[in-house]
C-alpha cells in the first residue's frame, strides 16, 4: 500500500516536471512581455519580471492599426476558411460514403491519390501566381493547400459509412425526401462529432497558417497575425522602419525592441492559451478519432 503511494507520487512528480517543461517557454514569453526594457537589457528574459512594466504594450497600442488589421485578417480567413472547407469537404465525402453510388471507388481513389503524390512547391506557386493571379489577395490565404485535405475527407467519409445506417437513408428516400434534403436534414445532424473535430482542426490550421502568407503576400496590408509575427521575428528592422512606430518617437533607439518582440508574440499566443481550456477536451478526442483509421 505504501509502495503504491510512493509510486503514484513518483509518477506525479515526473508529470509535474514534464508539464513545467511544456509550459516554461510560454511563461518566459509572457513574463518578458511585461518586463521593463531596462531590466531585459540587464538580466535578459526572465521567468518572473524583475521590473514589472507595460511599456511594450503601451508602445504597441499607441498605434494599434497594424495589429487590429492583422487580427481582423486572421479572424476573417479563419472563419471563412473553416466554414468553406467544411462545406466542400462534407459535400465531397457524402457521395463516396454511399455504397450504391456509381464510380464510388474511382472517386475515392482520385481523392486519396493526392495524399501519395504531389507536384511540389514550384508548379503550385507558378500556377497560383501566373494563372490565377492570387498574389497579394485574400484568396492566397484561403485557398492554396488548406481548403480540402484528402485525409479529412476520408475521415468524414468513414464516419458517414460507419454511423449512418443505410436503412435510414433508404426510408427517407421512400418518403420522398430529396438527396440533398437527406444529406442536410439527416446525415449532417447525425455527424456532429466528426464535423466538430475536423472543424476544430481546420480552425487551428487556418489560424496558424503563415506559409501561404510567406510565399504569396508581400503587401503588408494583407498580413495576418502569423505573417506579421513572422516578419517581425525574421526582420529585426521591420518594427523600427514601420512608420506607425517611429512617427511619435524622438529616435528609433527609444523603441523597447526586446520587450516589444515578446509583447507582440504574446498577443499572438494569448487567444489560444485563453480559449484552450474550453476546447482541449474536443481537441484530444478529435485526435483519437483521426488516429483510429490513419
Amino acid at each position, binding site marked *: 500500500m505504501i509502495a503504491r503511494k510512493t509510486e503514484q507520487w513518483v509518477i506525479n512528480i515526473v508529470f509535474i516536471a*514534464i508539464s513545467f517543461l511544456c509550459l516554461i517557454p510560454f511563461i518566459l514569453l509572457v513574463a518578458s512581455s511585461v518586463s521593463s526594457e531596462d531590466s531585459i537589457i540587464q538580466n535578459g528574459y526572465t521567468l518572473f519580471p524583475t521590473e514589472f512594466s507595460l511599456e511594450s504594450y503601451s508602445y504597441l497600442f499607441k498605434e494599434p492599426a497594424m495589429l487590429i488589421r492583422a487580427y481582423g485578417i486572421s479572424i476573417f480567413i479563419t472563419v471563412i476558411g473553416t466554414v468553406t472547407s467544411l462545406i466542400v469537404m462534407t459535400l465531397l465525402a457524402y457521395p463516396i460514403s454511399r455504397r450504391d453510388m456509381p464510380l464510388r471507388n474511382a472517386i475515392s481513389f482520385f481523392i*486519396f491519390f493526392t495524399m501519395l503524390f*504531389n507536384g511540389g512547391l514550384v508548379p503550385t506557386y507558378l500556377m497560383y501566381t501566373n494563372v490565377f493571379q492570387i498574389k497579394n489577395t485574400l484568396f492566397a490565404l484561403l*485557398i492554396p493547400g488548406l481548403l480540402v485535405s484528402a485525409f479529412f475527407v476520408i475521415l468524414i467519409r468513414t464516419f458517414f459509412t460507419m454511423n449512418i445506417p443505410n436503412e435510414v437513408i433508404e426510408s427517407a428516400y421512400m418518403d420522398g425526401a430529396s*438527396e440533398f434534403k437527406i444529406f442536410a436534414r439527416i446525415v449532417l445532424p447525425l455527424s456532429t462529432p466528426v464535423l466538430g473535430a475536423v472543424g476544430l482542426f481546420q480552425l487551428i490550421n487556418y489560424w496558424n*497558417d503563415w506559409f501561404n502568407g510567406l510565399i504569396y503576400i508581400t503587401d503588408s496590408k494583407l498580413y495576418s497575425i502569423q505573417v506579421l509575427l513572422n516578419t517581425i521575428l525574421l526582420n529585426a528592422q521591420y518594427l523600427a522602419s514601420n512608420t506607425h512606430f517611429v512617427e511619435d518617437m524622438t529616435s528609433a533607439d527609444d523603441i523597447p525592441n526586446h520587450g516589444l518582440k515578446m509583447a507582440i*508574440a504574446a498577443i499572438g499566443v494569448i487567444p489560444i492559451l485563453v480559449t484552450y481550456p474550453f476546447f482541449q477536451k474536443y481537441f*484530444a478526442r478529435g485526435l483519437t478519432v483521426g488516429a483510429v483509421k*490513419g
Partner: protein
Amino acid sequence: MSSRVTGISLKKLKKYKMLYLMLIPGVVYLLINNYAPMFGIIIAFKDVNFAKGIMNSDWVGLKNFEYLFKTEDAYIITRNTILYNLVFIALNLVVAVALAVLLYELKNRFLPRLYQSIILLPYLMSSVIIGYLVYSLLSMETGLINNTILPLLGRGGVMWYNDPKYWPYILTLVKIWSTAGYLSIVYFAAVVGIDHEYYEAATLDGASKLQRIFKITIPLITPVIIIMTLLQIGRIFYSDFGLFYQVPLDSGVLMPTTNVIDTYVYRALLKNGDIGMSSAAGVYQSIVGFIIILISNYVVKKINPDNSLF
C-alpha cells in the same frame, strides 16, 4: 412494364445527379490545387523562360538534375532530411509510449486529463510562435539560457544562432517538445483500449508492474506503434518546413545543419528565383517520397492488411 423500368432508372439518374453535383466543388479544387501541379513537374525538364511562357520554354532533359546533384547541397539536404526524420521518429516513439504508459498508471481520475492537456498544448502552436519561444530561450543577448541558466552553472554565454553544431540537438528537442504530447495521446487511447482482464490475470499470477508493462501493455499496443511509425517513415522525405525555416530564424550560417529539401526548394524558388534548381529538387522529393510511401504501405499490408492505407 418497360415504361415503368425507364421511370425507375430516370428516377435513379436524378437521384445520383444530385450526388454528382455535390462532388463538383471538391473535385474542381483537387484538380486545380493537386492534379494540375502534378503535371507541372515537366517544369523541371525545361529551361523556363517567362518571355516564351512555361509551355513553350525549351526542353533541357535532365540538365537541371545534373546541376542539382553536382552541388554539395543535394547531398546535405538529403542527409539532413532523412537523418532528422529518423531521429525524430525514434525519440518521439520512446518518449510518447513512455508518457502513455505512465499516464495509464496514474490512479486518479482528474490528473491524467490535466497532464494530457498540458503536454498537448505545444502541438497547437504555429511554427512562428515556436520560433519566438525558442528565441526567448536562446537569444544571444537576452535569452534565458545565456543570461540566467549558464551563469548559474558558472559558464559563459553561447552563440547559439552562429554555430551550426548546436542545431541538431536544438531542433530535435523542439520537435519532441512540440509533437511527443500528440503522439502520447494516440498511444494512450490504445493503452486504455486494452482489456482489463489481462492485467487482472497477470496480477493473480504475481506479475510485477514492470512485467505487466513490458509483457502486456507494450505488446498489445504494438500494432498501433507499427502503424504510426510506418506512416511517419512514409513521409521521411518531407520535413516540417516551419521547424527548419522559422526556428533557426532563416539563418544562412546555420544552413549546414538546418537546410532540408523543403527549405532548399523554397529558397531556390523565392529567394534566388532559380526555377531550374528548385523544380529539380521538388521533383526529386515528389518521386522519391512517392516510392517510399508505396514501400512503407506495402510493409504495413504485409503486417496487417486492415491498417494499410490502400
